[in-house]
């Protein structure tokens, strides 16, 4: 085990999982209000009124913690020319033909795309969520804006949930990545296969 590489620090892991737990709560309570077929999810939160009360607070907590995480990870997620090529070869990605793909740094283009979609959708969710938060804020806005915000909120939530489904699946699919986020370490072979440039960078640092 001692030759494994550190991929995420304890703070990064804690931050990630705090956001993940809040996301699950926000998504379940939001989906309860999204479509009648899922209203039964409101029982998990103590009924309809409690779902309505809790959802925005959960959302705000998630947004704040996500902002901290995004701040940490933003630098590593800048899109580079080789990322476009990686995305263009998505067929090779899903077919596991990794050898044909351009070399990847700490994050591959899919992860970077995920990152920026999350940043955008959470920003939209937070801002529109404030507009449609009847108890405290809606009184300050015109009904046309509230209608637009409701629509946008639902759309951003759809984008976020769908993106997270892909994120969770990718984590299950690529063996070793759940471990990376749970205890922070990956094997050298894992790093070399999935993130060769990051692996090299880590090795160089070790030598120095």
């Amino acid at each position, binding site marked *: *085990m001692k030759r494994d590489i550190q991929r995420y620090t304890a703070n990064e892991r804690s931050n990630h999982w705090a956001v993940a737990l809040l996301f699950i709560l926000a998504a379940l309570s939001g989906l309860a209000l999204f*479509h009648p077929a899922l209203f039964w999810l409101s029982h998990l939160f103590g009924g309809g009124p409690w*779902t*309505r009360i809790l959802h925005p607070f959960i959302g705000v907590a998630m947004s704040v913690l996500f902002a901290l995480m995004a701040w940490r990870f933003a630098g590593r997620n800048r899109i580079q020319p080789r990322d476009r090529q990686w995305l263009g070869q998505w067929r090779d990605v899903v077919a596991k033909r990794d050898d044909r793909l351009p070399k990847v740094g700490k994050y591959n283009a899919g992860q970077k795309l995920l990152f920026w979609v999350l940043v955008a959708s959470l920003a939209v969710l937070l801002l529109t969520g404030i507009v*449609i938060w009847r108890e405290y804020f809606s009184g300050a806005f015109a009904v046309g804006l509230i209608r637009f915000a409701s629509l946008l909120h639902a759309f951003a939530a759809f984008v976020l949930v769908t993106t997270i*489904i*892909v994120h969770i699946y990718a984590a*299950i699919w690529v063996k070793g990545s759940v471990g990376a986020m749970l205890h922070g370490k990956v094997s050298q072979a894992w790093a070399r296969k999935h993130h060769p440039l990051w692996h090299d960078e880590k090795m160089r640092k070790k030598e120095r």
Partner: protein
Amino acid sequence: MATQDVIARSATTTPSPSVREQLDVAKLIDTSVCIGCKACQVACMEWNEVRDEIGSTVGVYDNPDDLTADSWTVMRFAEHETDEGDLEWLIRKDGCMHCVEPGCLEACPSPGAIIQYSNGIVDFNQDNCIGCGYCITGCPFDVPRLSEKDNKAYKCTLCSDRVSVGLEPACVKTCPTGAIVFGSKEDMKEHADGRIADLKSRGFDNAGLYDPAGVGGTHVMYVLHHADKPGLYSGLPEDPSISPMVGAWKGLTKPLAMLAMGATALAGFFHYVRVGPNRVEEDDVDDATPPVAAERDERHDADRGGH
């Protein structure tokens, strides 16, 4: 009793109890006969046992100056100067219009919090209301109000409790001038025709019935002297309909979004079934590393396997 004649129920995808059918009812408010005495407001308070807080006048006759969770109907007074320079009081009794296509019902996320009876009355069931205020967002007439006391939405019920036992709404019962009448929607239209003919004979060429088609018609209708300009009556909407944004927010897009989310999860499952997990193979290590390092890695892997 009343739950056997429901034609629409908020946030519900299966049929509502609807064996019993009833005649379409309507309340007709004749603005040309209304004297603005507010007896209807008082009758509404009395019958429904709601008491609003005592406010202060805001320089006009409107009092309270807006609908609230405790004031389900409010007289709105508009001063209108005609082209000839005459002053007209355009007084309107504001409250729920009981739309045939209710925006509140479409927007409501809570099953059974809003119901529409086969006689056309749109009723809120506060037991099921979760207090989200989506009904306010959905209403083209800006009618429902959230109570600060209990976070439930309230509005005119068209006295559904009275109507269900054969009585007329309290405001109708009390109106001293006969400006408010109640009956079958057909009869009310006929009654309105007579009133409109009378108004036209008195020089109100644009007199007409307000029963806006954009919401499928309403079960509260107005006779207006200026039916061509309903906006004169304290902003009565010209051509109300459910906002396209509410339609998109609550319409077909939601089941489609549900389908897309489900399909994404399913696609993941079948990708796993067909392609299998993306594991780091031993071979990968050999290919990519110098022999010494590879040896170390192998020993390292073997160590782990031995435990």
